[in-house]
């Protein structure tokens, strides 16, 4: 089937089998290798993407659901101010995720800040536990997201008062 959709802000199109997974399509057809493909069963959280504004495991999204939708991967998210807040927050707190988890952790954190601009530590841990990373000091991750939340709030404030 022909898939037309918006990928990282651009109109794109490709051919796929109806049951192909979005994670495979993004990696194989569009070389977006920031989308990892590990467990292919929704468990590891490494393939997170935003689908129509909702963060989902791309390995559980069949091709036919992608038609007419808007997909943002970590490569697209990297172009946003929200990404800069999180990168800076993580850097300041000493939480530097490995290349494998980085994209998914940042997208998971971003989805939380979208819903809860000032999240509690417990909410952050709950959200980030979606990504199967066992190497990080949880306290550093919490500090990283909370620092990003402050940076984001400041940025929003200045934008509103410009």
């Amino acid at each position: 089937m022909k898939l037309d959709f918006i990928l990282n802000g651009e109109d794109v199109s490709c051919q796929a089998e109806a049951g192909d997974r979005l994670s495979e399509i993004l990696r194989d057809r569009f070389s977006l290798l920031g989308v990892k493909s590990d467990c292919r069963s929704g468990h590891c959280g490494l393939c997170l993407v935003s689908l129509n504004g909702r963060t989902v495991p791309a390995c559980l999204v069949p091709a036919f659901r992608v038609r007419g939708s808007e997909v943002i991967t970590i490569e697209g998210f990297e172009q946003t101010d929200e990404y800069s807040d999180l990168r800076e927050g993580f850097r300041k707190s000493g939480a530097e995720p490995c290349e494998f988890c980085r994209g998914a952790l940042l997208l998971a954190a971003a989805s939380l800040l979208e819903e809860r601009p000032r999240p509690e530590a417990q909410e952050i841990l709950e959200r980030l536990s979606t990504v199967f990373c066992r190497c990080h000091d949880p306290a550093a991750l919490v500090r990283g997201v909370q620092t990003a939340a402050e940076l984001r709030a400041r940025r929003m404030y200045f934008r509103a008062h410009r």
Partner: protein
Amino acid sequence: MLIDEVIVPSTLSETLTALKRNPEAVLCAGGTELFSEESAGRSGPARSLISLHSVPELRHVSRTDHYVEVGSATTLSELLALKEGFLPDPLRDVVRGIGTFAVRNLATLGGNLSCPGRFRDCFPILACMDALAEYRQGTAARWVNLNRLIGTGGTPDIPRGELLTRIRIPLGEWSLGIAHKIGFPRINSRSSSLFVFLARTEKRVLSSIRLIFSGDQAVRSREIEASLVGKKIPLSARETETALGAFAAHCAQAGVPDSSATRFLGLVRRAIGQLNEGAPS
């Protein structure tokens, strides 16, 4: 699953027409069960698939004084986003424990209640609440108490060829609501189970009690529940032992493996303990 045709209806009536024309088609709501690695092998005959993700009628949520009605394709995240108090608390707690937030962004309530093979987490809590499910096929519609989905041997008896459209959840305060998951949290495990205990007391008398232990099979005895209604809280040691004895006999009769039965009885004992503790002295 090999797919030879995908139908993406945009209204309920289109969905029902598509199902009537393709009674063997696979219904796909969130796809989290259908497309997870274990179930998504590329073998077997190619199937037609009807996707429910673009049908607004199946995502409608409403509330009266007596019940909440939830469209079957409402995602678990959408349920959690409803304002506090909209859904009964014990149900909210169960939904919050399912998968990860990203899985809940896709997974639907209807899909959770329609997984073949084993009962998923929303089933026992909703069955305890005597929730009703509306099934439609062509122009026919019927409401089914979820407890009727417990087939012979306690295994799921999910209607086939019918579309689950809405779930009607009765409202009402429970004095005690316990939902205890056994197994790894957030994992799509074939071996996890859920114990649900709901009790309502009025003036220190048990006016309603419901309990289910479910996974591969669901264990519930309305007779034992009825035998406890009207008893004073706290239950005496003798009343507790009698109830536990009756549950043990029920498990044996239902063919529940010993290890599961022991777990179930332990959880019942603990829940009764909590109920007794909460009773004003």
